[in-house]
């Protein structure tokens, strides 16, 4: 158990970056959402690790909030995607450029 915080931080950054990479290279909206969750998860790892390091429960409280927000975001996101799918006939984000410029 005494392996220190550093490995967790590296792990967290890697997970976060992998999620970001997914966001960058994927165009399927649902997969992008999944990548977003992945990023959030990376952040959560960091929070929990530092919460342990600081001997404080606050990090974990924040994680709870992050999860709640993630849930809300997923709900709205999925609703948007279904609506979008209905209108555009696909979940490819490249189709969504009404707001472009």
């Amino acid at each position, binding site marked *: *158990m005494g392996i*220190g915080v550093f490995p967790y931080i590296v792990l967290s950054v890697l997970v976060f970056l992998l*999620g970001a990479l997914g966001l960058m*290279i994927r165009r399927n909206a*649902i997969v992008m959402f999944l990548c977003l969750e992945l990023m959030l998860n990376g952040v959560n790892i960091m929070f929990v690790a530092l919460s342990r390091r600081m001997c404080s429960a606050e990090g974990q*409280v924040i994680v709870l909030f992050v999860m709640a927000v993630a849930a809300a975001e997923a*709900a709205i996101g*999925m609703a948007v995607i*279904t609506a979008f799918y209905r209108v555009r006939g*696909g979940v490819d984000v490249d189709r969504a450029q009404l707001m472009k410029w």
Partner: protein
Amino acid sequence: MIGWYIFFLFLALLILLSAVGVVVMRHPVYSALSLLFNLCVTAVMYLALMGAPFIAMIQVIVYAGAIVVFFLFVLMLMNLKRGEYEDKMGPWRIVLGIGAFLIFLLQVIALSGKWKGWVHPGSRGVGIGEISRLLFTRYVLPFELVSLLIFVAAVGAVALAKKRL
């Protein structure tokens, strides 16, 4: 000590692999399953290595159990055909994406010297009692606000997804 390291490396490897899976899987359902796996392994890590059993629990119940399953539902509802779900990822985008990935990573590594020496001070985990105490005292306002947020999100989701209100 070494044992813990090996255990950590094992879990971390699983997490990273599944994360890569989320990114590269062709079919969205595979991606989702991969994420599910990723979350579960993270929960194990919380529980076994990081002394955060409550978060681990929530991670499984809410994240894995509710959110990802919810994603899966949506995927099934849409029932995407082959060709519809496939990404046509241009090589440029992949190169650029990986480039940004590496740049950021390098940056983090360059800055990581600060944390290298951070060693875990003790084994005392934080109990559920401590969390709930904080939640209902100092964080009670954000807590309530979050509940409101979820409520709004639920209503909003219905409003958005319904064809006609």
